[in-house]
């Protein structure tokens, strides 16, 4: 097996995550699909690191993880704030800028 297969798997996971973002309307599940896409790109970066034989790809994946952690914190805080004002976590209800 060639490590390129990991890249195909990453592409597949990324596609599934992107389709999920488009299809689902619960804000939390949409957010989980975004996480899935980030993880897929991490897998691609780690595989690139192995293909090239240096660790730069792993550093990129490491930074992606840190940024994803920060993003999760802020995003979930936004969802909680939104749920408090609308009593709903559906992205369809976020159609107004202000209540």
């Amino acid at each position, binding site marked *: 097996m060639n490590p390129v297969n990991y890249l195909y798997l990453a592409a597949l996971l990324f596609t599934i*995550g992107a389709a999920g973002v488009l299809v689902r309307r619960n804000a939390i599940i949409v957010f989980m699909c975004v996480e899935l896409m980030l993880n897929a790109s991490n897998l691609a970066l780690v*595989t690139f690191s192995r293909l090239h034989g240096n660790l730069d790809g792993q550093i990129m994946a490491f930074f992606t993880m840190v940024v994803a952690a920060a993003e999760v914190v802020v995003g979930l805080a*936004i969802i909680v704030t939104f749920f408090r004002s609308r009593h709903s976590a559906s992205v369809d209800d976020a159609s107004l800028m202000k209540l």
Partner: protein
Amino acid sequence: MSTTLAAASTATSTGEAVQFWVLGTVAVLGALGTVLMRRAVHAALCLAGTMIILAVFYLANGAYFLGMVQVVVYTGAVMMLFLFVLMLVGVSTSDTLEETIKGQRWLAVAAGLGFGVLLVGGLGNASLSTFNGLAEANAEGNVQGLARLVFTKYVFAFEITGALLVTAAVAAMVLTHRERTERRSTQREMAEKRVRENRQVPPLPAPGVYARHNAVDIPGLLPDGSPSELTVNPTLRGRGQVRDVSDEALADLAALEQRTQEYLERGERPAGNAGRDADGSGDRDKEKAK
């Protein structure tokens, strides 16, 4: 791994291939579950499984540090944060299935397919028949190699990431903080308000106090025999799972009074004892003993 010490190799070990095909299938199934499961908790569990499998793939790809970080940060911290927010928002809220935009689902699936075909086509076109392997880069240890890069070549990115994390922590606190617009009323004020409104003057009974069970889904009975919905957990009330036994209790009481009445009419006991027949069974036993 030892075979990759040469400059470039073309294939990995058979064990890794087997691991890839088995775990890769499970990872894709987990990703599909994340997208297709109706309940958010099930989606979160599917995603956690996919993330653990990705951690195994990181380890297989020689990214030992990232594999551990994936388990600790993603499945440990991020998914737990997701579950916490699910608890806050309400576990039972499942997604609505009706489409608000006509044909959105099919368009999304078509767009996803097209995107996937583009990605896979691009990958297939690339010439990737050989790979270098990480044996040389990991020679002094994966963590040491990463640290050498983070603290030399990528040190500015590292510092900026720190600033980003601090900002995110502050942002989460600012976003979820809620200023109280009015003073919280004290217990004394609430009691005075109840008396002034002449509604529910004594404290509420606990669940099942005057009922025959102390189960949480049975409301307590107020002194006049009516059930108090306030004594039941709001979650059960919201689901409509409150078991109402007040009618049963009142029917029992009526039957008891009926029996007492019949007993008194027979006139076998002095009238003074009749008032104590609140609990029927004990007295009946005594009566049998006589």
